[in-house]
């Protein structure tokens, strides 16, 4: 169990993480979501002992994580900027990981290099943004660390590379279960990987729930515009789309079976709520749409 207690991270007078308490059972994939400046990277930095919390603690199985060698060995934190030296060659970066990481799998790293079409002789400084991110993905996956933290590791990757990354992440997670925390802005693209979702807003914990529960928290209603409007009246709308006479709205409301039956009788169809719609709704209260009248 990873426990964050009253975690606060300050930079001078700026509070990046404000009194966050979280219990993270191990062996799951977490999605850490938040708008720019919400404190995601600061929280992850404290979690990975890259930064001592201003207040509060991070504990792994009851032990204080900061500067604990056993905890550090089990933690791999890959930041979007990569903690490598630009003058190094890709193979040199991986070699250092091989010397220092107890769980490093060089064969798997080599396969990932092929998958992402990375040239081992190239210097980091010569890589594109997407290729640098791919190096981060290789470091994160081949380390096989029991706690793997990937902070916006997809940055600059094209759609093919991102798809390969998500597929590898899931396959390797299933083969070697561990705790993975993914921080991302591409919510819909990755949402299916998440087992639990954590949302930060202005440094505070807004939500920590099982993904399925979160999806069940609202509903998407699709059908003739008039029928949708009548059904959704009075309930908070998270998002809406219209095409011709057809309208789809996402509602922050869990209808009773009788309500669903009534809607279906009126020609409406129902689906789960999108995590992204919910995220936008929760973190942008000023932009929340007025309930349909």
């Amino acid at each position: 169990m990873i426990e964050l207690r009253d975690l606060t991270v300050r930079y001078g007078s700026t509070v990046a993480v404000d009194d966050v308490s979280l219990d993270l059972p191990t062996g799951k994939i977490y999605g850490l979501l938040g708008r720019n400046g919400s404190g995601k990277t600061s929280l992850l930095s404290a979690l990975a002992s890259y930064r001592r919390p201003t207040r509060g603690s991070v504990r792994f199985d009851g032990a204080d994580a900061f500067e604990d060698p056993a905890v550090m060995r089990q933690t791999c934190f890959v930041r979007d900027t990569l903690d490598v030296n630009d003058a190094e060659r890709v193979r040199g970066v991986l070699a250092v990981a091989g010397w220092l990481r107890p769980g490093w799998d060089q064969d798997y790293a080599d396969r990932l290099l092929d998958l992402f079409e990375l040239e081992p002789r190239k210097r980091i400084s010569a890589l594109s943004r997407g290729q640098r991110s791919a190096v981060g993905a290789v470091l994160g996956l081949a380390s096989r660390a029991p706690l793997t933290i990937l902070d916006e590791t997809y940055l600059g990757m094209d759609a093919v590379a991102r798809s390969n990354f998500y597929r590898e992440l899931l396959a390797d997670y299933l083969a070697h279960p561990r705790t993975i925390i993914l921080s991302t802005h591409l919510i819909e693209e990755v949402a299916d990987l998440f087992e639990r979702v954590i949302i930060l807003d202005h440094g505070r914990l807004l939500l920590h729930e099982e993904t399925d529960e979160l999806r069940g928290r609202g509903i998407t209603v699709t059908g003739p515009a008039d029928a949708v409007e009548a059904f959704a009246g009075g309930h908070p709308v998270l998002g809406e789309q219209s095409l011709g006479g057809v309208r789809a709205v996402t509602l922050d409301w869990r209808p009773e079976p009788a309500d669903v039956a009534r809607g279906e009788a009126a020609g409406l169809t129902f689906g789960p709520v999108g995590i992204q719609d919910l995220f936008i709704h929760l973190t942008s209260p000023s932009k929340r749409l007025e309930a349909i009248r």
Partner: protein
Amino acid sequence: MSMHGALFRIYRPIIIPFAAILLTADLLVTGVVVGGNGEIGFSMWLVLAGSAAKYWLLVVGIMLVVMQLRVFLANGRTRHEFLAGAGVFGLIASATFAAVVVLGHALEGAVLDAIGGRGDGYPVLSVGGLLGEFGQVFPETIAYLISGALISAGFYRWRPWIGLVVMIGGAVPAGVADSLLGIDEFGVVPAHLPYAAALALSLAATALAALAFQRVIGDVAIRRTAG
């Protein structure tokens, strides 16, 4: 792999070409001087290698903080493990560089003697003098390494103006070692302080700076960029 083992493997590609360049430069310059004058009255090796050992280790001290710290943390090591590994690496590297300076000086003297190129002022090194010269150079190389590390740690941890203040303290070990233990190209120690006192003062300054370095880096936040 041990921390200091990893550091040696990281620095190996830099050390070997550096040593080759140094040796080539010494042979070339000494050859030109001896070829022109028929002899040389000072140790070119002490000038070149003596300076190179100090300044290279100063740069290594800087690079350890700016380049290696975050790499080791990113690969699952603590700051204190890094400090311990860097300490062992620094001690071995400093002792090796000091030994190379002293042995090179002895070898240079023997070669010049053999070819009849040794001038009157050349600092001839006896077997007993080897240890004495090592005792002068080794504390200096350590002091420069620690100075480099503390100076860069100040800039790494704090804003530039605080870094400037720390830089003044960081320069103390190098300054003290240079002024009290430094030897010139004639093998002379300009400072007129008994060796034991000079050594004690130099080591004290170095130890204080090392302690300050440990305090600065012991819980430092790992920066995103190279600092």
